[in-house]
């Protein structure tokens, strides 16, 4: 039990106000251990993204608690939670979400910008993770000069540049072809192999094989805890 990194406790999430209030997550309980690779699958609208953003400390639940490394995230104020995310979590957003006016390496450096590091150190660390995703030769390109798969790699590099323990990704392969999708899944596989905990929302069952644990959701409830 000492290996539990993240603990989701009786989480409920409602969106909107009465009478249009919708109950999106219904009492979710889930523990994730250090080093796991977890995929969350389910139909569209089942609440996967909502759960993932709550697990990432980005979306306040209506009820329940989220503990990561024994810190109750939603007990922290917004600024402290931002700091916690910066130190412990990495995100790969849908549609990559790169800033179009920054080069690949600058996008990767973003999470380091507000840290007390020298510019040289920031560049060094950004270059190191770009190498890890196989993009060091395209570090100075703008996002629109990169292919979809390459942009995805930049997004992954940005998510791991602060050396987080947990990487959360929401449908990172959604807009990629199967071959590129497989390559990206392999990158996540390598990250997990190096000790990072990976939690990914994905639609496509063919990617299930890349994960040690597959959780399924339906109508805001977990139907299979996997593992």
């Amino acid at each position: 039990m000492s290996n539990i990194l993240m603990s989701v406790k009786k989480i409920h999430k409602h969106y909107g106000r009465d009478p249009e209030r919708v109950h999106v997550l219904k009492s979710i309980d889930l523990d994730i251990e250090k080093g796991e690779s977890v995929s969350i699958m389910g139909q569209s609208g089942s609440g996967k993204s909502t759960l993932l953003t709550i697990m990432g400390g980005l979306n306040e639940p209506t009820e329940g608690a989220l503990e990561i490394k024994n810190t109750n995230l939603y007990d922290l104020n917004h600024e402290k939670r931002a700091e916690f995310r910066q130190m412990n979590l990495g995100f790969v957003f849908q549609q990559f979400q790169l800033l179009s006016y920054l080069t690949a390496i600058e996008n990767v450096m973003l999470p380091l910008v507000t840290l007390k590091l020298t510019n040289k150190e920031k560049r060094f660390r950004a270059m190191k993770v770009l190498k890890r995703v196989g993009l060091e030769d395209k570090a100075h390109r703008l996002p629109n000069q990169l292919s979809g798969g390459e942009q995805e790699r930049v997004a992954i590099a940005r998510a791991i540049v602060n050396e987080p323990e947990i990487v959360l990704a929401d449908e990172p392969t959604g807009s990629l072809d199967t071959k590129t999708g497989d390559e990206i899944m392999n990158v996540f596989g390598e990250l997990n192999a190096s000790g990072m905990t990976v939690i990914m929302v994905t639609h496509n069952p063919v990617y299930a094989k890349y994960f040690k644990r597959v959780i399924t959701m339906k109508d805001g409830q977990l139907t299979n805890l996997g593992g």
Partner: protein
Amino acid sequence: MNLMQIAFSNLIRRRSKAMLMVIGIMVGVATMVSFIQIVEAMRLDLGDRIDEFGANAIVIPDKVSQLITSDMEAIRASEIGIYVNIISPKLIDVVKIDDQDVLIAGIEVNSEFTQKPWLTIGGSDLSMIEMADDEIIMGASTADNFQVSKGDTVTIMDKNFRVYGVLDPVGSEEDGLIFAPLHSLQSLLGRGDDISMFELSAYCNACPIEEVAMVVETALPGTRAIPLSQAATYRDQSIGEFELFGMTLSLVVLMISVLVVLTTMLTSIQERVNEIGIFRAIGFKKRHIITIFGVEIMVISLMGGILGVGIGVLMAKVLGPYLADVQIVEAFSLKLGIQAIMIATGIGLFGSIYPVIKASKLDPIEAFRK
């Protein structure tokens, strides 16, 4: 990479939006600057006109029974002596002509007519004329009254005077006067060195005439110096009216500038919701977001301010003569530059404070929406 570089990169990428805000601020600053310049020129011009048009103060006896010619020297020797442009002494008395009472003024011809350039004969200036001791100048209505004209002889206290000329009518008390050389009037009336009053004008644009008057009273104990400010009041009033007009116009333009910044910032933030969501998700704090937007708005304000001061100075030069009948000679000054930058940052801050606070409060999940 730091927050500044993010701000600069974004400015370059969204340069059309940035330019729109620069222009908005520039127009506001230019309006304010040209208005400030025109009012300042009007003030300077007012100073010039006071010098040119008549006395700033009159000095009359108060506790002393009489002023004398040498009192002029005392004024010149006082601490405001260097500012005193013209002192025009006057002896005023009533004499009888054909059994009618007439006011006669003994004057020093050159100083009197230099100080009052509006007194003319047949339109020509009198400041350089030479008058003989037995010559007089008649005011327009006095000449009319006694049916005399240039070259006629008028008898005053049994002495004959030749009429040097008749003043063009000016519609004030000068029309009903007779002017004679000071010395000849003093001896005619047996008044020695007596003077009824001095009219003095000062060069000084900066020092208030009230101060000048006080110094004169100290230099000549027992006298009273009365500031005359009609000319100044008149012009001051027109400056006041122009100031009100300019203020109103500037305020309207400033508000438009603020609105341009406000709406542009709001749409810009709307477009950048995702981006701000990313910043927040990866750990940027509110103050980091505010810094990025703050740097952007400062750069925009600075550019707007610099362009605005240039265009404002040009506008004042072109519009000054039409709007306020003044020539703007003095162009750019450090003070004006600082004022312009302050106005520009003011517009920038006012227009962006609400959008920026709104941006800093955006939720990090915005980054997951699409």
